[in-house]
């Protein structure tokens, strides 16, 4: 009985905590526009996460992209050139200009919400 009680308490705490994480615990970001959403969809469809990270989630073969737009040494042009041409390790995905624009818009949105990266000086 004692074991079932401990399990029940932990489970109820988990449900409560999850509900909080799904709402107030993560309400700091701005809401994505439909164009940025399209960029996000393309990011997933081309599996960009295989090589690139956003907020630490993703692979390591390519550079981290969370703050690629505001990074003084990289910026929008750098991202655009890579998306249009590929690189040594990155294939050219032959993206349409519309797809490139949507991806850039999505990366701008991510960058604008990367508060911890900027305050920590990364």
């Amino acid at each position, binding site marked *: 009985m004692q074991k079932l009680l401990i399990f029940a308490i932990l489970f109820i705490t988990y449900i409560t905590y999850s509900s909080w994480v799904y709402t107030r615990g993560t309400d700091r970001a701005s809401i994505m526009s439909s164009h940025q959403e399209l960029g996000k969809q393309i990011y997933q469809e081309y599996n960009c996460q*295989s090589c690139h990270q956003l*907020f630490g989630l993703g692979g390591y073969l390519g550079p981290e992209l969370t703050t690629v737009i505001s990074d003084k040494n990289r910026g929008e042009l750098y991202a655009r050139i890579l998306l249009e041409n590929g690189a040594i390790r990155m294939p050219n995905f032959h993206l349409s200009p519309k797809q490139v624009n949507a991806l850039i818009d999505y990366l701008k949105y991510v960058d604008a919400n990367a508060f911890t990266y900027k305050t920590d000086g990364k």
Partner: protein
Amino acid sequence: MKISKSIPGTWFFIMAISSLFIGLLFGALGGLQYVLPGFLKEALSFQKIRPLHVYLVINWIFCAAAGAVYYYIPYVSGRKLYSTLLAKLHILIQLIILIWVVTGFFMGRFGGREYLEFPPYIVVLIIVAWILFMINFFVTVRPSFKEVPVYIWSWSTGLLFFLITICEAQLWLLPHFNNNIIRDITVQWKAMGSMVGSWNMLVYGSAMFVMEKITGDKGINRSKKAFFFYFLGLTNLLFNWGHHTYIVPSSELVRTISYTISMTELLILANIIYSFRKTYFKTNPHKHFLSFRIVTYAEAWILLNLVLSISISVPAINFYTHGTHITVAHAMGTTIGINTLLLLSSLVLIAEEMIGDGKLFTPYFNRSFIFLNISLLVFWLSLVGMGICKIIAVHEKNSFTEMMARLYPYFQVFSISGIFVFLGLLLVLMPVFKTFLKLGLAKQSSDPS
């Protein structure tokens, strides 16, 4: 009493080992893309190789864990498996998913998320297969949770929380989650972190059963200490995921809770050190020596990875290690060093129950096993070294190209030792694979399930 042959269990093992061999091959090819830029860039780019590798090795863990549960539940419950038909359907659906996902990845069909890159509709099939598995488990075992040993709790928890977390991982399909990057990333880390906890519960449950079978001591899995560590593990499954999200600008409370929970792992660490000494000085098992030996090596890997895990959970250290290969070292150490070795001990125990105790303990196996562990250690250290080097490169504000050039010697060690890990696992698992293949192809009349 001996464990009886289980046809579903045997076929799950065959599928698991096949997945691992192919998954490791993709891993080795992916490793080569680090040292040979442009290698297979157009034909099989890293964008395809990585999900193929990740999906197949995770499939190894799930299929091997499911196979072990199918073998063990008739033994622990004293009943026949509730439905062989449901188990066969489970295998069939699992096989369909495997073929569908692998073919899709080859063709460049993605659309999912990190670690679950396949299109989300495939998750429906995964859930159906899992429910069939759960029905068979719970109806066969009919657990009375007041009395059952800790491994039944562990398996039940693993089954329940995989179902919860695979559903949670699809929340991004709802606009409330998808339109808010911080919520989306946080929930993704949360779901995947707890999902890893769920498969750990399945694997650790089997490992606890193996230890009981080796020692013959039924008390170890019914003791207060065993349940204390089970509940500690459960707490970590539920709340420990957040140490991955220190850099995500969610609420400060998420980070505080995660850090506090992460530190409870120190208790597990202390227990392992204590048990290690006890095992070394007092235990002299005669039964299933090979499984015992594999578990002992896994214990050493647990120790090594816990030290790493606790270190990277400290926010001041995590600030530097986050997004470096140290996280990969942690993932590789746990999936190969801990999960794979614990599953191997289970597979070896079951295989030797079928063909005779000690039959797999040959000089060949011994040499291969040592070769595997040395290769894995070099592989693990190369990843840690790569992570440290990356931290220095970021600190010195190197560009990505400069950093990749700096990491190149580590990539070489990582790539070569990765191939050796592949070869080591191939050598170690081949006799086990052959044993189960023979069992699977033998006449089914001897199947008691």
